[in-house]
């Protein structure tokens, strides 16, 4: 068990270094930060001096080494754009993204699960067919368009919900701010959460439906029915329970991608999260923020995968047979 964990941890470190290396090579193609940092009057000599002082003229390997060294100490430097420490900037923006991701993840899970069960049980019902068709739209419409449509209907035409921002936020301690405790904060969360969660919801719904249909055909369900158990006990006590294992795995893994890919939703709704911060940083070539953001996303994925692996290890006895050098 300990050998397995150590091996997985070592692999995670290698993944992190690889992500850092890949993103660092990509930064060379994003452009030159100096142009955005200085006014048009700045002379070419002064631009070179700034480039030198930031170490942008050093070989890429040296820059990478310096970045890794600082990152190990949790030091990501000063944002070229907002002139604030990068770590502080990201921590300030993280609550908005995490809150949005959790709410939309929860929404997707609850709605996806119930609609999935419903469409599996009433396979030929009219409503089921309508839901299945509508879910195709949810899968195929791009997030950007869904967001703009929701804004147009609910903010501009009906004026029920705000079109952008996070509403009023309340500080919880030093490092967290929440919009869930204020009325305007909750209202502001509705549209972005739907936009971000719609794809996940349809995904979960289709997964639950397929799994349910599979399980409902299994022998033990027939046996349960034969025992004269109520439809409710059979459907929810036996069938649903057995579909949940893959659904929870997928939902967990999707949470990582919801955080990572909230970028578009955050841009459309002007949501002050890390995704919007990243997009603005790309436009400005704010290398310190881009590097820190990519490292953070890599870390989230690595941690979630590690947890999932460990859970599998705990759940599935077959993995405990130690196969030297080969971990699943």
């Amino acid at each position, binding site marked *: 068990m300990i050998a397995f964990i150590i091996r997985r941890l070592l692999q995670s470190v290698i993944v992190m270094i690889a992500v850092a290396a890949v993103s660092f090579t990509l930064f060379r193609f994003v452009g030159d930060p100096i142009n955005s940092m200085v006014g048009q009057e700045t002379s070419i000599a002064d631009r070179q001096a700034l480039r030198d002082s930031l170490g942008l003229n050093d070989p890429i390997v040296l820059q990478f080494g310096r970045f890794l060294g600082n990152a190990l100490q949790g030091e990501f430097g000063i944002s070229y754009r907002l002139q604030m420490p990068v770590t502080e900037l990201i921590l300030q923006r993280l609550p908005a993204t995490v809150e949005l991701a959790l709410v939309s993840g929860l929404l997707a899970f609850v709605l996806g699960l119930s609609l999935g069960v419903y469409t599996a049980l009433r396979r030929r019902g009219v409503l089921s067919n309508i839901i299945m068709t509508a879910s195709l739209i949810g899968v195929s419409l791009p997030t950007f368009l869904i967001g703009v449509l929701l804004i147009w209907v609910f903010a501009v035409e009906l004026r029920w919900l705000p079109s952008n921002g996070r509403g009023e936020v309340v500080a919880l301690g030093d490092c967290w701010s929440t919009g869930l405790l204020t009325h305007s904060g909750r209202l502001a969360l509705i549209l972005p959460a739907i936009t971000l969660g719609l794809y996940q919801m349809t995904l979960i719904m289709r997964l639950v439906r397929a799994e349910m249909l599979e399980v409902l055909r299994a022998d033990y369900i027939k046996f349960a029915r034969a025992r004269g158990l109520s439809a409710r006990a059979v459907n929810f006590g036996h069938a649903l329970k057995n579909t949940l294992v893959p659904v929870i795995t997928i939902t967990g893994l999707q949470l990582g991608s919801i955080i990572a890919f909230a970028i578009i939703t955050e841009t459309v709704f002007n949501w002050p999260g890390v995704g919007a911060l990243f997009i*603005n940083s790309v*436009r400005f070539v704010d290398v310190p923020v881009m590097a820190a953001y990519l490292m953070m996303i890599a870390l989230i994925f690595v941690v979630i995968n590690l947890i999932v692996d460990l859970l599998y290890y705990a759940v599935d006895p077959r993995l405990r047979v130690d196969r030297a050098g080969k971990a699943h």
Partner: protein
Amino acid sequence: MTKLARALSLSASVAALALAAGAAQAETVRWARVADALTLDPHSQNEGPTLALLRHVYGTLVSRAVDGSLTPDLATSWEIHPEDPTIWVLHLREGVTFHDGSAFTAEDVVFSYERVLHESSGFRAIHADVVGAEAVDEYTVHVQMSGPSPLYPNNLTNFFIVDKTWAEANDVVAPQNYAAGEENFAVRNTNGTGPYQLVSRDPEVRTVLSVFDGYYGDAPQVTEVIYQPIAEAATRIAALLSGEVDFVQDVPVQDIARLEQTDGIAITTGPENRNIFFAYNATSPTLRSTNVADNPFSHPEIREAMALALDRDAIRQVVMRGQSQPSAAPLPPFVNGWTEEMNAYGAPDYERAAELVRSVYPDGFSVQLDCPNDRYLNDEAICQATVGMLGRIGINVSLNSQTRSLHFPLIENLETDFYLLGWGVPTFDSAYVFNFLVHTREGSYGAYNGGQYSNPEVDAMIEEIATMTDLDERNATIARIWDRVMEDRVFLNVHNQLLAYAVREGINIDVHPENSPTLWTVTID
């Protein structure tokens, strides 16, 4: 009327009166723009949105009115020293206080000069001719220049004055230094003399300003400003339509017509201090991207043909939806040196243009056009339209359009043959255009002369006008330089950009040529 009803109606009208009075006293304007100010440090970033926000908090010695003229601000008057033409004498306003209550004196101006000339300042180049400033008495400052600089006050409109004691107490004697790795106190804290003081700031989310009671000017009608950057154009306009913001500064040209027809929304347009033009390398013997052996742009016929083929009116109608001022002059109309004659352009003549191209290259030629796609209004679309127009006369242009951070280094590193550039003239004088775009690249000259135009005669005249004190003679020289530049077709100008502001009806705001709206001059019906 019963006694009770009378009492009720009386109290109702009192309440209405109180409400009306309250409304007149407290007016909030929620202001949305595409980007946030990068910093609140007054001497760090010479960048549009940063200057526009800071202007509300920090005062300048001289201001720029909506018509482009200079008006007194913290300095009530200024003149060249009668005995020494290299000294500017600034007379300061008395009785001005900073937001923290300390008095504004000559010491603060001298200190601000030291700070703006510091190595980590973003405004050093604007004050490059300043040797130093000296307080003569409490309200007079002498600014020593390296030579006579008759138009230097034009450079003072973005020079914010900070309080010396505040800066020293908070250890912000110098602007942010990125390499140092720690944040400067002035990035998020302010102490200026402007009409508004900072209430709160959450970078890229919301900045709240409230009126400063001790402001020396007329009391502003707008007492609270809430500034919100909204990057996405569709969201920005939706926020205005849904009544969540009152003033949108960056209105996409395709939305203007629709907003004009929307009830409760008003649109104001005006010329921006920025013109959009093409430039090309006509000097090098060969080009990087052409299929012919020599440099096609070195032939005057080709340059003339391109000018004949550019259909500015079509670009105005189709690409800009009417939101531009087509012009042949590569400078905005309110800049000193602009003439009607330079501005005039004819209708395109494709036959004549094609003939001119054929006279040099019977089979035409090909070249690459470098274009930004996120810097100016519809920049990429302007380039695409031009590619089509030049295609009609036998010039096969391949378009390389990319983000600004990749486009501008091409010009800086002289790696482009043919490019699009937009240029604003903050000093409102032609010398600024000449220094950066026309003079041979050497020292502080010619940083954006990506076409590598080099004419020793013109260079000499440009250096001459920098120190000329006789303004008539100076203007005559400027006219001579322009004659030469237009004759050599150094630039192929497209148009001047127009700005559009969208506001909730009842808010009266003027379009500022530098796109730096002043909310303290806004009136509300």
